[in-house]
Each structure stands twice: as C-alpha cells, then as structure tokens.
C-alpha cells in the first residue's frame, strides 16, 4: 500500500475509533507481523522481516466494527481479526497487508447467569481474565489451554481450541452456546440462543473454527460449570504405551468422566516429564484426574484406578499428579517450550480408538526413519479423550536444522506434509485444536473432498470480496490476486 493510501486509511479509521486507537508505526506493525507460526520465526531469526499490516485498529464497540468492515469491504482491504496472536498455524498473519482488527478492547463480561450457569462475554477478553471473573462467582469456564494467559475467548472459538480439562468439559466448540458475528458487509448475525435444537442447521458451529475468514465474532454465550468441590490427580507408570492406551480407552468406554487423562509416550515421559517435573520415569506416564462432588470423584476414581491396575499401571501416587497440575503451564515457558534454534512442529490430530495406535506408530516410524539424517525426534502425548477416540499431540523436533531459511522451511513443510497425510490415512483430521491457518490450508480440499466446494460457496456468499483474513483455511486469496 502506498504511503498516501496508508494515510487515507489511517484517517478513515481514526474517524471511526479515534486517532489514539489507530497505529501504523513501524514498531507497531512489526509486533503484529507474528503469531506462533514457526516458519515466520525462522525467517526473522535469519534476518528477514516479514510482511506486515498497513494499520492496526482497536475498536471498542460492535458499531465501530460494523463501520470498519463496511469501509474495508467497499475498498477491498484485508481485515485480520486479532485476539492474542497465539495461533501456531499462521492464522493471524497479515500476509496481504491490510487492517489488523485487534479485538482486545472488547473485553467486557456482559452477563453471568447464575441460574443457568452461562456467561455472555465480548470475545476480546483475555482467557485468564474471563476465568478470574467467573471464579469470583464460584464458576469456571474450565478451559485451560496452554495459551490461556495470552489468548482471548474469540481465539478459543475461532480456532476450535481445547484445554487441559477438555476430556470432561469439552472443547471450545462444545462450551459455546451462541455467537454474535459482524459480517463483512457490516450486518450483525446472532445465532440461535441455545446450541441444541431441531430448528435447522447450526450457524454457531459454522463460525466456530472459521479463523476470522467469515466474519468477526464479537460476543459469545458460553456454558460454564461450578468450581468443583474437589479436583485431584494421580499419576501412573505403564510398562509400554499400548497398555496405557488400553487403560485410557477402557476408562472412556466405561463412561466415567475423568477431567484429565494425559498419557505421555515413552519418549515424552523421559524428555518432557523429566525436564519440567523433575521425574525420572521409564515407560508410559499417565496423569489421571477427576473433579466434582467428592462422592462422585471417589466413585469414579475407584472405577478408573481399577482399570489402570488391571492393565499393569503402577500407582505413583497423587504427589506427582498434583505437581503436574500445579506446573501444567511451565511446559510452555521458555526454555522448556520448544523454540529456535530448534525446528519443531505439533501436527496433532484425532481419530477413533481402533486406529489411533496404528496412526501413532506409522507417523513415528516414517518421520524418524525418513528424517534420520536430521536426527529428528518424534514424541507424543494423548491428552484430549473422547467417548470414541483420542487426540494425539505429537511433536517433531530437529535440534540442528539448516541455516539457510529456504532449505529449513522446505524441510519443515515436508515433515508437516508427511505427518498430516498419515493422519488423513487413518481417518484423522488435519488438526485437532491448533487450527489450519496458512500452514495447512492447501490440504483443506483434500481433507473435505467435495465438501470443500460447499465451504467455498459459503465463503463467497458471506465474503464475496474475500477481505476476511485472506489466505487462511485454504480459501483462495482474492486480495493477493488483485495486487
């Protein structure tokens, strides 16, 4: 965008939100040129500044967002809705420039319904702040992603996020009841007030996971839960991953509801658990947690622990489990979190119980063998369990990747491609809770098949000019073509 055009844009936006809430300085633009997408980090590390937005704007109201979108739509200027910028797939990157629409000033909790246990909140609220606000009323969203302190409610929803206790409390898409969305032409769409109905297709779920490509989610009604009377964690050690997987499966099929089953494969148990928790373990390490009314927890523990015992799980007691809960976020602080100079990726996926172990084994074998010359390390934990299957949170790490950024990116992308195709082969999905962004968009047609035509049609109907977060979710980047 030319300097003159950029000034005009700043002027229009300033008239809408006030000049103090529009910034286009180099330093501001730099700060909004990144999320947690590793490739972007790599290029900066090798001395290259990335594409940046033309302007950043902080609206405070739905009305201001309506005006901004109307203007941007008329002028075909990209709009990238932005919460905490904790996306790891590049979902918030301004790859075609345009307006970063930072929603963090929309941070009000508008209603807490103590009778129905629901909360209405604007979506720019920080996850930690929302949880704190609920805790004051004895309630919890029970959504504890690693990104909780950095992410926003809008980000939880736009990326179909998941938290540590999702096995009991569900992912973001299961917590949401209804949404308010500003569409690209400025109209306001309010989805049905309850999530379960027989009143036609569910528009709420259309926008959950849309990663800012269909509109701007401005308010959400979420189901909440009471803070549990007790919440406690036990840890167990299994001789191998298979025994532990079986224990997890049988616990889920017994239909008791653990808040956590977190199972580390043998490599994770050694590398990650020791690094953060200081525990030296050999085998497959499992955290098993229950919460709720004391009597219910005691009953569920009794059933769950018996299943574990039958499959040879050694009871390491509650101390290590409680320590894990206390330090559950420590894994994501540097230097524990994987970061440059290492190459790393988390091609997490989910599939049914009958396929998950084969998926794990093939992915592990292919990646470690194909990339043996790079000393690729692959390990996984299984942390979000469903009544029918389990999510695999696997990671690859190369400690000494190529210095040349093009070579490094090519290697990174090829590993991802190999990993994700194996997921698809076993009826897995491209991603379970980190989203698609720019990283995996090219595989969306392959994943959805003819269904992607339907998604394209919806995208074109809602956003004919393609201004909303262009280049993401595999939708064609109309803005880039225009330029």
């Amino acid at each position: 965008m030319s300097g003159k055009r950029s000034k005009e844009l700043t002027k229009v936006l300033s008239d809408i939100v006030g000049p103090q809430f529009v910034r286009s300085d180099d330093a501001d633009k730099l700060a909004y040129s990144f999320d947690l997408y590793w490739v972007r980090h790599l290029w900066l590390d090798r001395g290259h500044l990335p594409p940046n937005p033309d302007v950043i704007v902080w609206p405070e109201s739905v009305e201001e967002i309506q005006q901004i979108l109307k203007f941007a739509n008329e002028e075909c200027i990209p709009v990238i809705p932005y919460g905490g910028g904790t996306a790891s797939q590049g979902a918030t990157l301004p790859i075609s420039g345009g307006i970063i629409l930072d929603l963090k000033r929309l941070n009000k909790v508008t209603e807490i319904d103590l009778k129905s246990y629901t909360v209405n909140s604007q979506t720019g609220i920080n996850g930690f702040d929302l949880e704190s606000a609920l805790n004051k009323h004895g309630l919890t969203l029970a959504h504890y992603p690693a990104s909780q302190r950095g992410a926003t409610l809008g980000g939880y929803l736009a990326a179909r996020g998941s938290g540590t206790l999702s096995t009991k409390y569900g992912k973001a898409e299961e917590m949401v009841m209804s949404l308010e969305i500003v569409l690209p032409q400025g109209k306001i769409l309010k989805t049905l007030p309850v999530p379960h109905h027989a009143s036609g297709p569910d528009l709420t779920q259309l926008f959950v996971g849309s990663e800012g490509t269909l509109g701007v989610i401005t308010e959400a009604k979420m189901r909440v839960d009471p803070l549990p009377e007790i919440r406690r964690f036990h840890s167990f050690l299994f001789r191998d991953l298979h025994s532990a997987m079986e224990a997890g499966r049988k616990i889920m099929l017994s239909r008791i509801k653990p808040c956590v089953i977190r199972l580390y494969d043998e490599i994770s148990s050694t590398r990650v658990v020791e690094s953060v928790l200081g525990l030296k373990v050999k085998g497959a390490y499992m955290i098993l947690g229950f919460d709720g009314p004391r009597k219910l927890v005691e009953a569920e523990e009794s059933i769950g622990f018996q299943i574990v015992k039958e499959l040879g799980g050694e009871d390491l007691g509650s101390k290590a489990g409680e320590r894990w809960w206390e330090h559950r976020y420590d894994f994501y602080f540097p230097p524990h979190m994987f970061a440059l100079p290492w190459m790393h990726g988390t091609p997490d996926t989910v599939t049914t119980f009958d396929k998950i172990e084969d998926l794990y084994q093939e992915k592990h074998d292919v990646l470690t063998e194909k990339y043996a010359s790079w000393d690729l390390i692959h390990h996984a934990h299984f942390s979000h369990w469903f009544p029918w299957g389990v999510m695999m949170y696997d990671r690859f790490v190369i400690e000494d990747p190529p210095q040349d950024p093009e070579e490094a990116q090519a290697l990174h992308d090829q590993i991802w491609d190999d990993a994700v195709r194996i997921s698809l082969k076993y009826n897995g999905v491209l991603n379970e809770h980190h989203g698609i962004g720019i990283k995996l968009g090219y595989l969306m047609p392959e994943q959805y098949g003819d269904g992607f035509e339907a998604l394209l049609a919806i995208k074109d109907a809602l956003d004919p000019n393609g201004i909303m977060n262009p280049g993401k979710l595999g939708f064609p980047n109309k803005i880039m073509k225009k330029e």
Partner: protein
Amino acid sequence: MSHLVEYLKVTRRCRFCPMCRHACTIGSITCNELNMPRGKGLLGYAVTEELIPLEGSTAKAFYECCQCGLCEEWCVTHYNLPGAILAARADCVEKGSEPKVVKEIAQRVLNNNSLYETKGQSRTGQFSESAPVGLEMASVVLFLGCGAAFADHASADAVFKALNKSEVGYTLLEDEKCCGAPLYNLGYRSEALTLAKANFENLRKAGCKVLVSPCPECVKSFKIDYAQWGLQESKGFEILHISEFILKLMAKGSLKLDKPVDMTIAYHDNCHMSRGLGICDEPRDLLDRIHGIKRVELEWTQEHSHCCGAGGGVQFVSPDTAKIASRKILEEAQSLGVEAIVTASVNCKHHMLSAKTPEDTVEVLHIMEVFARAM
C-alpha cells in the same frame, strides 16, 4: 554501542512468548501487542539484530513500560525483560533518540535535583512537622526522596510525627540528592551514578548507621541498584523502608499506638517494595497492629500486584495510560467498599491522587499517614 545486546538471550526467549501477557500492566490497558512483553522482546531482538533502527516510534516503545517487573515475576524462568528494556533506553540516550519528553524530565532532575517540580523550595523545608536537618553523627538518616520532599508533604509530616514521638535520634541530610533511579530508568546511567556517589558520600559523612526512607524506590536504589550501576563501595549501613523501621521501634517498645482508626482499607503493593525488595508482609503487619483497621486484599496483590502507573517513566511518555493504571486500582478498591487505598510509596500515592476524580469516595494514603492517625 548497545547495552541491549547484553540481553540477547532474554529478547530471543521473550520475542515469541505470550505466557505473561495477561500480567502486563501497560499492555492490559493499551491492548497493543507492542506494549506486551512479547512485543518488547521482539522489538529488542529486531533492534539488536539491526533489523529496525532504534529511533522514533521504536525508541518511544521502550518507554511505554512501567518497569513493574510483573512479567519477570510471572515467568517461570524469570527472564529479565525489564532489564532489557532499560538497556534499550540507555542505548536511546547514547544515540540521542529518546523521546523529547524524556529529555525534558531528565533535565528537570538534573537541574532541580528532583523528579518533581520544586517551585523554588528546598528539599528539607516547608513541612508542618519539624525534623532535624544535618545533625552530625545521628545514626539514623531519614532519606526523604523526591516525592516526600516536594510532591507530598503529608507523607513526610506523618513520618516526622512518628519518629519525633519515638525519640529516636535521626536526621535529614542537608544535601540530599535524588536517588538517581528516575534518571537510570530513563536511560541516563552515568548521571544516575553521579547522584548515587554523591548520596553515598553524604551518608558516610553523616555517620549513617541506618538509612530509612518512606520511598521504596529510594530504598531499592540504595539496597540493590547502586551496586548494579557500578557503585562498588561497601555501604556499611542498614537500609530500611520506614514501615520496617517503625515495626522495629514498636518491637523495642519505643513507639506505641494510642488511638483506634476505624477504617476499611486495601493495601496497594508498590512494585519496588513487593517484587523489588520482597517486602509484602511488613506493611501489612504494621497496618494490622492499628486497632480498628479492617484490611482487604486487591485481586492483584503482593508479589503479583499491578503497577499504579507511576513507574518507569510511562507517566511522562504515556500519561493517559499511566492514569488508567491508577484508575483501575481506585475503581477496584471502591468496588470492594474500602474507604482508603493505602500504599507504602509516596510516588504511588501522589500518582493515584492525580487520577482521582471528585466522584471517587476512596482516600489515598501513605501507610505512615494511617499510622500517624493512630498516634
């Protein structure tokens, strides 16, 4: 050139990390990624690698931080990002690219020997209570600090009242200088060190055995910072915040409380006091000894307290943002139904008072003012 390069490990670690962002006092107000710890780490890294010049909006961004240290406290590895930001400021000053208002404030400190406007007053005059000045060989030196000396005499008078009643032998310095922390924080390191040396020399001449101050920033300067600034000499005297000293006097029986103070209060932890010096319990202990005081806690408290906006120069570079930081504390205090927000810092009190509106019902008091009411 480049103090910032010494923090490359920190900026590399912080540049993409969002784990402390919820705690950032300034970022939580502006909602700007640039003001978040991650933004500062990223900017610091980019400047160090010469990808972006340290001037204009980039230079100013390093001053949009209140140096509260909550990011470092919250980090499980305790990366010293506030130190990296101060290093960037020192680089700005060496390049001459610090914002204009920073230059003006630094000049004020250098010209007036005070962070605050002096209006021609001396550092030891104009108080309601009397206090000894320049006594030779008084073992206890009361180091007022710029705030008590010029901006908030009520706090100074409360301190004098307590010390006078205790009959402890104390004195004010005849030639007290600014502790230098404001200059250091703005990036003027050699000028800050000059003040530190002058203060140190004056204290030695006075025969100081115990240095007492109602200003946590001054206490932290003497106790911790001067050595880091390069002042290598052994101090040879004890350094205490006034609340710690008063507790000692009470323990000895030198000071007793006579009157109840029926008031519900919230104690606001000053950043230097809680995170810098680790003093959280003593002021609370002191307040709890006052009959009639009912104390409630703010949500962000003790070592996790939020800054009131009076720190790190942000009050000069982004005064509106700094004011909102205080407003948040005042509004929370009022929502808790407290009658007074009490702090152990003269600067915090002064800044929070500046953010008060006529509609606000809550008083803002230095801890010694509450104590003085109980005497």
